[in-house]
């Protein structure tokens, strides 16, 4: 075979791509479109100005990575609520079992995927950070 032919062919493909839509996303100036079912950072749902979570401990029970820590207490109305709700994002495998297990639909997984941080302790998301804004 003519040794020039494969080079021409290769350059042809390169040349073609100059007219196609680029695959690379120019992150962070360009943002990806996150699917509705994407399993990103968890969010604690809020209803009537307080977290819906009743601290039933089903999410830490079902969690295969053991990354959820819940501590419950009794509020002034004798209702159960979570004094502490922490997710260790370094351990989380984003399986979504916690959302599935929640009996009161208090937990969701958001499209938030930018979870990088500078220190390990910043990966432990407290209840305040997880509450939906």
């Amino acid at each position, binding site marked *: 075979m003519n040794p020039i032919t494969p080079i021409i062919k290769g350059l042809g493909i390169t040349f073609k791509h100059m007219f196609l839509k680029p695959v690379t996303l120019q992150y962070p100036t360009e943002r990806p479109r996150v699917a509705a079912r994407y399993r990103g950072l968890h969010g604690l749902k809020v209803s009537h100005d307080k977290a819906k979570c009743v601290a*039933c401990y089903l999410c830490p029970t079902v969690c295969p990575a053991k990354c959820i820590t819940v501590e*419950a207490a009794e509020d002034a109305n004798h209702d159960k609520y979570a004094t502490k709700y922490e997710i260790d994002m370094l351990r989380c495998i984003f399986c979504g079992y916690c959302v599935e297990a929640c009996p009161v639909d208090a937990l969701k997984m958001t499209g938030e995927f930018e979870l990088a941080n500078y220190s390990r302790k910043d990966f432990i998301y407290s209840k305040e950070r997880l509450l939906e804004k």
Partner: protein
Amino acid sequence: MVNLTIDDKQVTAPKDSTIYDAAKLNGIKIPILCHDKKLKPFGACRMCLVEIEQMKGRQIPACTTPATEGMIIRTNTPDIIKARKLVLELLLLNHPLDCPVCDKGGDCDLQNLTYDYELNSNRFIDSKFQHEIDYNNPLIERDMNRCVLCGKCVRICDEIVSYGALTFIDRGIETKIGCDFEKPLDCEFCGSCVSVCPVGALLARPFKHKARFWALTKHNSVCGYCGTGCNLTLGVKDDKVLTTVYDENQGFHKGQLCVRGRFGYQFINSEKRLTTPLIRKNGRLTEATWDEALEIVAGRLKGGTAVAALATPRLTNEELSLFKKMMLENVGSKNYDHSAGYAHRALTEGFASSFGSSASSASIPDIQKSDLLLVIKTDSYETHPVIGFEINMGVKNKGIKLNILSDKRGKLSKLPGANTLVHIPGTEVAVINALCKSVIDQKLADPSVASLPGHAELIKALSDFTPETIAAVSGLTVEKINKLAADYAAAEKAMILFPTGLGYAGHAADLARAVANLAILTGKLGKEGCGVLCLSEKNNSQGAVDMGFYPQDGGDNALQILDACSAGTIKTLLIAGENPVTSYPDNAKVKAALDAVEFLIVSDLFMTETAELADVVLPACSFAEKEGTYTSTDRRVQHVKPAINKIGQSRSDFEIISSLIVKLGGTPPTTPAAQFSEITANTPGYEGMTYATLGNEGAFAPVSIQPVFVVPVAAQVPAAQGKLALVTGSVLYHNGTLSQHGEGPVHVCPEAYVEISRSDAGRSSIIDNDLVTVTSENGSLQLKAKLSIRIPEGVVFIPYHFPAAPVNMVWSGSAVTMVSLSK
């Protein structure tokens, strides 16, 4: 035995069993909500419906129907399953579906049955109950909305606890469980109702929302309070004891516990626990390392006979025997003791001389096998509530005749048919001698005992104790004494129980000898359901005696040790777990002794009033953190294993003593197991025991008895002279001073009080909760007054557990102290 067929399986069952029992015995599961094996059949829930072929397919409850010969039973036909589903649907119609926030979730019979029967929806519609929830009680939360009306709480409170706090109120759909007149719950707070509740209607408030049931790891243990030796299951999460878990198969008591056992566990993980060794520097206790502390302690222990030790009988057998070994071999001192030197005398001197063995001749299971019980002091219920439950069940279910000889009335006197003889405080030994005399005079004594040693001396000594003279002294009548003596002698099986402890100075050697004489005279010994049971106060009081941790061969006893501290002959005192400042008699004397002693070392869980005076404080650990054995009051040896890691830097007394032995140049055993094998080799009755053979059940150390008559000395009762007789003792909610650190007991009984009869109170116009000054020769003490109908005129009662108002300010260790009251 009866033969019957259940689900095509040929089975046999005992004659008195129900269909449910027969099925369970043969591994066939019948669902149940309202049945508990400890309670009488009730048949409230209708979950256990079965079909019996002979009854033409009628559905009948298995838990109330006796199994009869040839029955052909089916437990799971489609019709039965349909009926059970209907029962569940109707229960779930009103039961709130708040499983996520209900602490019973995961351990709930209704939840489990709903899951088993795959009930996903309900055909019916109705509104949920709107009963008010009782959040105010510190220990038991009652949410009647969740109640399924199984009646277990009502029945256990009546049949076993015999308190009757709960009952069914109203009729039909409005039925609920409540207290009389719908008042708040005010009972013994033993929590038996909580333990048997199949749903979340009754919950333990101290455990509320602490953890879910499935997250707890369960550790079998032995209760660390009284000498009953109840088995416990500790619920542990994240290295913390969060609750006690009910297990109906545990121990002789089938999981029944008292308020201390069930709600008094918080001391284990208390924030007030000592976590580092402390050394007194410039007059202040400052944190130090273990090496530093042990070095100083070991240096001070090289003082030979100028060293003494006091230990609490809450230490394990291994610790006590190693402690004794250290004192004898490494320190070279015979001065060691426990329990103020008198609370163990009933065993170490009384039974030791009368029976030739320093242990009780009867066991707790004997109670229900007996025909007649003679209980000395109604306090037996307060000191050992679970033994009290055994008495309740015996009296109510088996018709045991209950006779009580006491200086005040109490809960036991309320039992059906209870015959309470209320005597003048301090005369119990004289009364028992009079009972012996009456037995002899009525010719009811066992003729074979005349040949026993000491018989003649006893007969001679008893001539001073005719029922007539004693009736006058004790405030009883001759007829009552003669009748009790006759009843006791006539009963085929009769048993005597009496409590001992720091609060019962009068219950020492002579009382033990007196009751032993009565039992020997009438031949009520060495048979099932007979004998004498000394209820020792702490969880290992009997063990401490078996290990010989009391002065022998000329060693000083606890009170002599304190005197020697004051005199300066004892220079170093090592106290392990005892709190003499609060619990020993005569506060001023104890404090002076501890101040005078050159060097005081205290190892304890908490900064007690005694530890505050120490030069070195060593943090010890609780029963939940160490391995060893405890011996219950009836010589059941039980093995405890650590349920959690040691708190902070605390160490078990076994480790502390081992390190001290090393520093003193000895070689200690490597593990508690090694020490236990030494114990079994040297302790009569313990032969052949190992941790493996003890298992979860424990094993009885047999007691061999050589009965001898010994003449007991009846103490002189001080003349009243217009004063009141102070008796001390335990309250139901506390045991020693340890329960002061358990939240549950403190919620119910937070402070000391003085219990006065209504007539005495009326005379000084004292009303409930008045601050009253109690004055004796020793000192005075301000306490809240509690008026009570159980106290006879001329008597006041003060419990001893409370450091804030210690009764030893006015009490110097006599059985009866004369006091006056003023407002």
